[in-house]
């Protein structure tokens, strides 16, 4: 897979008092020229490949905006 960009996406949920909780939720990635929404889930072939390339030092996942 040719992964040209990867960025975490956060999700913020608010409780009844309006207190926010933000969690890292997914990765938006451009793979082979297409935009994909990739879950943070081992066993997903796109996530596994992203992490393989991160561990190999050939890809960096940028922080969420």
């Amino acid at each position, binding site marked *: 897979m040719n992964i040209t960009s990867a960025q975490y996406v956060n999700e913020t949920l608010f409780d009844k008092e309006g207190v926010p909780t933000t969690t890292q*939720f997914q990765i938006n990635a451009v793979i*082979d020229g297409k935009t*994909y*929404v990739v*879950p943070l*889930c081992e*066993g*997903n*072939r*796109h996530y596994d490949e992203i992490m393989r390339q991160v561990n190999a030092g050939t890809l960096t996942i940028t922080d969420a905006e």
Partner: protein
Amino acid sequence: MAFTISGRGIPTGGILDGAITSAKINSSGLAANSIASDAVSTAKIADDAVTEAKWGGNQLSHRNLIINGDMKIAQRGTSGTNTDDSQFPSIDRWLTRTYNGTGRVTLAQQSINSNGFKNSVRVTPSTTDTSGTYGYNLGQYIEGYNTDHLNWGTSSAQTITLSFWVKSSETGTFSVSFRNGAGDRSWVSSYSISTADTFEYKTITVTGPTDGTWATDTNASILLEFCYGGQTSKSTSSLDQWVTGNYTAATGQTDIMQSTSNYFEITGVQLEMGSVATPFEHRSYGEELAKCQRYYEIASGGWYGYPAGQSNHRISVPYKATKRAAPTLTKLVSSENCASGVDVLGGHEDETASGRVQATNLFLTGADKYFYAKFSADSELS
């Protein structure tokens, strides 16, 4: 010497065990209609009379471990060209492997009327590779949950049999391989295509491996690949046996990647437990589609009404089939009249069960506001 039985006929115990052997009955010994239509009733057959050995022991339905073996389901489109390794260009569940080769192929569903099949998939090089070095394969990776009954990797490993119809513009030796997910156990068999442009039926029986690790969960257990490109990196001359290592082709594999005029075409792929290739099991379109949707589906969802306020608005979109694993999502189509955009997100509580469509930064309230998206959810094995 013929004789006649008369009077009270043959008494109980009159025919000794083993007395009537096949040698005693001529091949034409039973005249036509000599067994009446109601002669062999349920009561005449003892509970344990018809053993597994009498009908081969294979299950009577849902034998085929391959999904979309008759190439009828094409949710991604009926034709597509790969751009890299491990992609699903068109036909559901069938992936193309290039193993670092620069050649590219188009996978196109064909309309046929041959041997009971209405569809096949044709692989045609769109970019040739004349090196003969890399592997070019068409494969399907089978989920461990669907093969755990084979007991592979244990002393009770079951034999399986692969059958398929294949044709090519080229004649010669072709190969098919079976590997585990770790790629450290391989079985390669070769077969011959003797006549160009003509479907030929092939069967290959594989003895169950008694060692190696074979997934029994949502991961890939058996990696089935049909090779159509010449290769040296993953070829072996040790055929029809399990070998340690990662091999997908037989030495001398025919190479269709030499010309864009060549093709490799296949249908009726069936992989079943046992040493007998039974007739292809035609499943209903709906059943086959549902099986495919565990690995890839196109979902859609949206909202219409009067937004209560401005913010992100999300709706949950349950999948038609629970996914093998949390899927990768791709937005295909969207529209809205009230937000800065429409995005797709994974499900909140269980990503294998649903996704979500979001109106991002919804800034217009009032009547008749809407947002909508169609997206793919991909949890394929590759």
